[in-house]
Structures are given as structure tokens and as C-alpha cells.
């Protein structure tokens, strides 16, 4: 199998970005806003100096090199259900949902409103039912729950509705410990959890060049408990990073390497995913241009830098600036998602979201899934083998014959790409079979059907009670 891929950046260019980032880390340093993290860096030979509300940490190149060696190239993102185990390794790719929506288009009324824990449960159930999503990111927040314990509510809503691997931000050191306890209850105890951790935390370095306290606390708490770290930086060229892509790549690389070093110094070989949802700031309106072509090019840089270090990558790509489920949303999703996928990103992130990542839309998730199936098909490329060359069949059919009834067709037709909602029927059939409805309307119908009918794998007995008690305990202290 050949497969399609984008190179986009040369080995020499990657070397330059790497050396520049190492120079930044060892001479300018990064700001660490946690005393405990600063001590960990110091213990490994970094120069640490107190500055205002944090520490400037200068990391020697040798420490960065050692830590990139320690981070595994291949690991498993375990599902609660082993059939959903997803192997992350060079060449593998998967898709997941955009993570931080705060509004939702209501599933039934389509009203644009603040999202709730119930919405998160339903969106997760929908993603659980869609085969294109191998792992499930928290796509919206339980905005009806208190800030301090919201991440616990988020986890409860998600794990109750999916048996796939879950990713979400644990928010604080304390919540990290509590979520790990909750996750353990959902897989039959801590011993099982440590063998097959079914959750990964996301953390965000703050551009430029800062790891805030909660980011450090979550990295330390999770690495110590055997939970993987997905570090996602969000540089905005022209504001929190240089206006040029190469400069942005250097800043984000330094931030990601900083969080990687903290992860590996806390606990060797902890799974670490190298992620970015960077893009440019539109300097005429002062808003992030989430679907700019620069985002696509930056994603190529992100995927290739991760490959350079032999660690898995995560590219934020599919978000649209459109407020509606419309043509803009579709164009913007497809372009940058295809680029990230073909650049070899191991996790392509951003499905189900419009309005620059503020609004989750159920129909968008369904349609993104259908488009992803096609993109994945393209990435796999063509197989040129004796069987696929079909020489004997061509000779047998000969000039003027037909292939419709050939055994070779019967044998291989199921591997052809197939449409579900996207439609290429002739007009009358379209009018009769789907009542001439547009694709967005049909996507909402499919979303409603799946949410109402899909049965996620049940939690083990007692797990729901443990989770409720954990949340209650945290809310009363």
C-alpha cells in the first residue's frame, strides 16, 4: 500500500527549527508558574531563577534530547471496551472532536444556547456511535455545573456515554486525582486502570513560552499516576507568537518541548502527544483566523516536528469561523483537515465545531464523520498488486464486455468508498427517497436517531455511585 502524504518541509528546515527552539529553551528559557515544577527542572540540571509570579527555567539541550528519547513513539489509548483500543504509532491516524465549545445548537429546537452536562452526554454518545472517532475528546463543557468541579462532571457525562478512550482537561492537580479515581471505578478498580488507563488529560502551554500553575500541576499529577499527557499549545501568529509561520513553529516547539521535558522528568516514558491548535490572528479584526491557510501549513510543521522527535502528533484543524452549518463550514473543515491528515498527524482534532470553536453542532459532527471516511480513504492511497491489477479479469472480459457481473467485482466491491448522507442519486430518486431534503436537515435527523437509539457499553456496577460520591465530596469541601 503506498498511501498519500504531504512532505511540505525539508529535513534541513526541520533541523533549523529544532536548533532555534533549543536555543530559546537554553538561553531565553520558559516561564514556569509552579514551584514544584521548577524544582523538578532544577533537579535535572536546568538553570532556575525566580521572576515575579514564577520562575524562568533555562533547559540545557542535553536534557531536551534525553527527554525526547524517553517519550514513547508508540502506545495504546485504551478504551473501557478493549475493542476500542487505539494504537498510536508512526503512520497511524485518527480523528477526534473539538474540545472547548461553550455553546450548542440544540439537538431538537436548533436554538443557539449555553451548553450543559446533558448536551455533553448526548454529544459523546453520538461520537461513540460514529466509527470515524477512535477516541473521544470533551467537545463541550458542563456549563450548568460549578467551575471548580466542572471537569469532574464532564468526565462523568463522557464515561457514561462512551467506552472509547476519553481525552479532556483535568483542570487542576486535585481534580486530576479525583478523575483518576472515577476512571478507576469505571474499569473495575485502580489495578485495572493502571494496566489500561482509559483516559488522557489535555494541558495547554500558554503562548508565548509559559507553563501556568494548573498546567504544571496536572502534568505532574497525571505523569505520577500513569496517565498520558496531550499537550496542546495555541500560538496566534502576530499576537502571542511571531507573525511568520517559521517563528510561530519555533515558539510552539519550545513550549511543547518544555511540557514534554516536565512530563518525562516527572515520570519516564509517560505517553506524551505533541499538539497544536495554532493559527494566525486576523490583525484587521483582532480575532483568530481559525481556518486560515497558515493553520494548514503550521499543522504540517507540527506533524513533521513530532515525527522528527519520534513522538505522536495532534493537529487542530477542522474548526470553522462560520456561525452556521453552511458552505464556509464545509470548505474550511475539509481543507485543513485533509492537510493535517496527509501530513501524518496522528490525531486530527476539530470535528463538530463552528463559530471558531465556540459552538458545537450535532449535524456538523455527523457530516464531519462522513467526510473523514472519504479523507481516510484518500490517505490510504492505491494498492497495486496482482489481485488489484486484475490482469486476468481484463483479459477475460476483453473488448466490449462488462465488469458488472465479473467475480472480481463481486469480490472487491465492498471495499469501494460508500456514501451515507452525501448524495449522488439522480434527481427523481433524491426527491422520492429523501424527500428532497438538504444534507444538513438529514444530518440532524441522523444525529437524533443515533442519540435516541445508540446504547453505549454500560458502566460496571457501582461505578456511577462512586462518581456521584466523588463529585459530592469535592463540592462539599
Amino acid at each position, binding site marked *: 500500500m503506498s498511501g498519500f502524504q504531504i512532505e511540505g518541509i525539508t529535513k534541513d528546515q526541520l533541523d533549523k527549527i529544532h536548533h532555534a527552539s533549543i536555543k530559546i529553551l537554553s538561553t531565553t528559557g520558559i516561564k514556569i508558574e509552579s514551584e514544584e515544577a521548577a524544582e523538578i527542572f532544577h533537579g535535572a540540571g536546568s538553570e532556575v531563577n525566580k521572576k515575579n509570579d514564577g520562575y524562568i527555567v533555562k533547559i540545557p539541550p542535553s536534557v531536551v534530547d534525553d527527554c525526547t528519547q524517553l517519550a514513547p513513539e508508540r502506545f495504546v489509548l485504551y478504551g473501557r471496551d478493549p475493542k476500542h483500543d487505539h494504537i498510536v504509532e508512526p503512520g497511524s491516524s485518527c480523528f477526534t472532536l473539538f474540545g472547548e465549545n*461553550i455553546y450548542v445548537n440544540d439537538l431538537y429546537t436548533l436554538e443557539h444556547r449555553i451548553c450543559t452536562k446533558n448536551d455533553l452526554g448526548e454529544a459523546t454518545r453520538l461520537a461513540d456511535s460514529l466509527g470515524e472517532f477512535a477516541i473521544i475528546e470533551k467537545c463541550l463543557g458542563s*456549563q450548568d455545573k460549578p*467551575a471548580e468541579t466542572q471537569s469532574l462532571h464532564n468526565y462523568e457525562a463522557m464515561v457514561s456515554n462512551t467506552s472509547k478512550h476519553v481525552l479532556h482537561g483535568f*483542570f487542576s492537580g486535585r481534580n486530576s486525582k479525583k478523575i483518576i479515581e472515577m476512571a478507576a471505578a469505571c474499569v473495575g478498580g485502580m489495578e485495572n486502570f493502571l494496566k489500561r488507563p482509559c483516559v488522557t488529560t489535555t494541558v495547554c502551554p*500558554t503562548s508565548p513560552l509559559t507553563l*501556568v500553575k494548573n498546567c504544571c500541576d496536572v502534568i505532574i499529577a497525571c505523569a505520577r499516576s500513569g496517565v498520558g499527557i496531550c499537550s496542546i499549545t495555541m500560538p496566534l501568529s*502576530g*499576537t502571542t507568537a511571531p507573525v511568520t509561520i517559521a517563528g510561530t513553529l519555533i515558539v510552539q516547539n519550545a513550549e511543547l518541548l518544555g511540557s514534554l521535558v516536565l512530563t518525562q522528568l516527572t515520570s519516564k516514558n509517560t505517553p506524551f502527544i505533541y499538539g497544536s491548535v495554532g493559527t494566525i490572528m486576523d490583525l*484587521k479584526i483582532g480575532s483568530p483566523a481559525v481556518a486560515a491557510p497558515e493553520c494548514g501549513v503550521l499543522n504540517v510543521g507540527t506533524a513533521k516536528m513530532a515525527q522528527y522527535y519520534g513522538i505522536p502528533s495532534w493537529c487542530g484543524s477542522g474548526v470553522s469561523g462560520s456561525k452556521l452549518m453552511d458552505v464556509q463550514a464545509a470548505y474550511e473543515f475539509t481543507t485543513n483537515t485533509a492537510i493535517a491528515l496527509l501530513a501524518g498527524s496522528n490525531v486530527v482534532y476539530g470535528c463538530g465545531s463552528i463559530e471558531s470553536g465556540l459552538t458545537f453542532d450535532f449535524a456538523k459532527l455527523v457530516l464531519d464523520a462522513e467526510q473523514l471516511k472519504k479523507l481516510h480513504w484518500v490517505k490510504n492511497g492505491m494498492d497495486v498488486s496482482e489481485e488489484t491489477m486484475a490482469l486476468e479479469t481484463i483479459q477475460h472480459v476483453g473488448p466490449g464486455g462488462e465488469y458488472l457481473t465479473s467475480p472480481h467485482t463481486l469480490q472487491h466491491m465492498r471495499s469501494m468508498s460508500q456514501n451515507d448522507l452525501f448524495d449522488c442519486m439522480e434527481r427523481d430518486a433524491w426527491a422520492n427517497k429523501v424527500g428532497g431534503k438538504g444534507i444538513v436537515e438529514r444530518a440532524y435527523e441522523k444525529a437524533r436517531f443515533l442519540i435516541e437509539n445508540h446504547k453505549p457499553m454500560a458502566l460496571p456496577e457501582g461505578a456511577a455511585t462512586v462518581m456521584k460520591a466523588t463529585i459530592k465530596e469535592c463540592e462539599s469541601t
Partner: protein
Amino acid sequence: MIDKSIIEETAEVLIKANKDRAIEIAKNFLNGGGNPIDLMEEGFIPGINATGDLFGRGKLFLPELIQAAEIMKEVTDIINEALTGGVDEKKERGTIIVATVQGDVHDIGKCIVVSLMQANGFTVHDLGRDVATETIIETALEVNADIIGTSALLTTTMPRQKDLEDALKSEGLKNRIKTVVGGAPVTPRWASRIGANAYAKNAQDGIVKIKELLGIK
């Protein structure tokens, strides 16, 4: 009244970020015996308004707006110095405290708001990100602020905006200091629920609301 050519040139030097020429215009005018208040009101304030307007219409880039705001600040200092009797022109336009609330580390939007406020001639104290309610109030009292503007990007940090309202009320400062709230998840409903004086949906709207609150046309 000041010369029409000066009025035109003040706008041009701000838009083109020609700091040296802006200072030269101010000094020449003042050395020639011109009235500092005329220079401000007829020259530089309309100039900076025109700059803000061009930004609003997508004709200028944000960094250009920031440069104009910085030049405006220098020119304002020169004009203030020239004013006899120490009347603080800036003070008349209002003093504003701006901060991203505690727990929130996202502040790029707030930085844009600050530039626009400066461009509009307000005195702005930017306290940065992740700022505790007590620090906001202490600084507001210290600099005798007219308005406190806070932003929150996360719904988890929005309650800190309510904390600020509650603290201002309990310390009896609500009549003295007005509040504006903003940030991606913040809504007009949230603003009225917590008792904020205004909601700003973006930086431009923030300026409109501040002017309304301060009674500036």
C-alpha cells in the same frame, strides 16, 4: 481654532505612525503660542478617532492601531505639560482598570481592548491576566479609577466577575466605580444578572459602552 492643515496632518501622522513628526507638530504648535486644549480637541482627538474608525472598517491592522495609541500617549504627555494650572486633560476622559480575572490566563483579547482604549485617549491600567479581585479593587482605589473592565474567556472563571461586583457592593464602591464585563462566554444576561454596569461584546463595543458610562459623546 487651529489651522486646518494641522488638523489634517495629525490624523495622517497617527495613521502612518510617524512619531517624530507628531511630536514636532505638537511642539511647533505650542512654541508658537497655540492653545494646548485646542490642539488636543481639534487635532489629535479627531485624529485618533479617525484611526480607530479605519481599524473598525478593516482598513488598518491592529499593530498600526497600537502604534497610533502609543504616539497619542506621548503627544498627550507633551500637551499636558504645556497646560498651565496642571489641568489633566487625560483625567477628564477617564481612568480605566482592565484585567483578566483570576484563574484565566487568556488575555490576548483584553490586550486589544487596552490598545483601543489608549487610542481613544483614556488612561488605562492593564493589570494583566489571572488577577485577584482584591488586587483589582486596591489598584482601582489607588489610581482613582472611573471604570473597571474585566474579561473572562472561560465559563469556569466567569464567577470571578460576580465576585468583583459583590466586593464592590459590600465595600460601598459601586456608586463610585462602574464596571464593564466581556469575554467570549460572557453575555448581556450575565452582565445584568451579576449587576455589572455594561456588557461589551468586543473591543469596539467596549469603547462605546465606556463613553456612554462616562457621558462622553
